[in-house]
């Protein structure tokens, strides 16, 4: 991240953060599934000011042929930020960052989807970030998991995207934009909430082993909360008449 701005003060004197949150407090998160009639499965996740929409198509025959795998399905993720999602307009289209996030998201999702059930097929996941405020890859992966569940794709578990980081030498949960830009470290993780496995992990900046452990403790705690919101969102759509 854009570190090095050591003179920016990110913690208030009473220990709260600039937006008033406690250090282990997450930004509010909402989720809804089945929002796009044309997709096989879809979801929208708002996390703080982030808005992520995910759509799932498939499984369908994988095209072009060269990406087909004879023994399993491929998960094809396309992460894209809308040009209007940030304060500086983003040039539309693929860039290095979106390729990277697409790749790590695809690998995280492939670890939970039962890909061996669909040889030669492709499962397309489209993640569109409508508004960005740090933590879009986490919001994106959470939305993608919900969309996959909504599409009825068999999975071992859902992946929950959460992040912790370090600002002013203190470990905090769920960095917002200022904390991400001027903070010292960021640790986004994809967690399988039922088994506690980790599907992806990235780190920007430096953390000591102790700080890392605190980050992960916060991340697991937040993952539980988010997981419950995801379950509620899935059940809210269908549990009406049971």
């Amino acid at each position, binding site marked *: 991240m854009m570190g090095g701005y050591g003179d920016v003060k990110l913690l208030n004197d009473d220990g709260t953060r600039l937006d008033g949150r406690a250090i282990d407090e997450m930004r509010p998160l909402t989720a809804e599934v089945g929002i796009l009639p044309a997709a096989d499965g879809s979801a929208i996740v708002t996390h703080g000011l982030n808005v992520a929409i995910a759509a799932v198509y498939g499984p369908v025959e994988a095209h072009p042929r060269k990406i087909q795998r004879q023994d399993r399905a491929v998960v094809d993720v396309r992460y894209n930020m809308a040009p209007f999602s940030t304060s500086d307009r983003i040039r539309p289209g693929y860039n290095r960052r979106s390729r990277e996030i697409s790749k790590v998201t695809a690998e995280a999702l492939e670890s939970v989807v039962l890909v061996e059930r669909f*040889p030669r*097929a492709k499962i397309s996941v489209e993640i569109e970030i409508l508004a960005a405020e740090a933590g879009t890859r986490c919001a994106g992966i959470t939305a993608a998991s919900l969309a996959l569940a909504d599409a009825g794709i068999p999975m071992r578990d859902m992946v929950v995207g959460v992040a912790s980081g370090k600002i002013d030498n203190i470990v905090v949960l769920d960095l917002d934009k200022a904390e991400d830009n001027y903070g010292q470290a960021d640790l986004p993780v994809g967690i399988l909430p039922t088994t506690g496995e980790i599907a992806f992990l990235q780190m920007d900046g430096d953390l000591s082993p102790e700080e890392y452990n605190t980050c992960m403790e916060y991340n697991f705690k937040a993952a539980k909360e988010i997981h419950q919101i995801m379950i509620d969102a899935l059940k809210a759509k269908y549990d009406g008449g049971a």
Partner: protein
Amino acid sequence: MNGAAEGAEQRLVTPGEVIGTSLDKSAGIGVLSQGEGMIATRLGWVRENNDTISVDPINSRYTPRSGDLVIGVIEAVRNNLWFADVLGPFNGLLPMSLAPWKVEFGAARQFMDVGDVILARVQEVDESHSVVLTMKGVGLRKLKEGIMSSIPMNLVSKLKGENDENLRALSTASDCRVIVGENGRIWIDGDSTGIDLVRKAIDLVNKEGHKNTFQQSLSDMIGNTPGGAE
């Protein structure tokens, strides 16, 4: 609801949710046995049948199985075979040897072209999920008149009812020929008032098919109790 599911509380589960132990039950469709636990792999309703726990998915793509009656739409024609979209992951392949006509090599297009709708049966599904269709069999044919609609494939059994009772009742009430493919496609042939009634029934399945009250709602709509047994 029918049979074993009657009276049982319907439980909605999400992927990854632990739904029981594998010590006394075995895992059915939509359930994965992991160590001592059993986890749901799909969003759906838990169903316990004797010693098997399975999850009926709420939403899923059709997976062809051999013997299924399906309604397909021709997507491509080659010299000696047709490709039909059956709503599964892969197109079904209909070789001319399994068509109901004597077709000369190169003349396939004269019998069926892109956009034609067929009633076919799944002949074979191999381990890489290639699907071979057949039109040799009683009633299998090219569908010419009528309209096509569709429902999620997991609701097909709800629309048909036990031993196709709902389907028969619907056909009688609407005076239409109604064919429901296992892949969720529906073919309706009859006059416009009849088609309208079937369309309403299809809307009802789409909206309320997963509910316990569906059977009653459908019976109310088509004006008689199927079989009189419920």
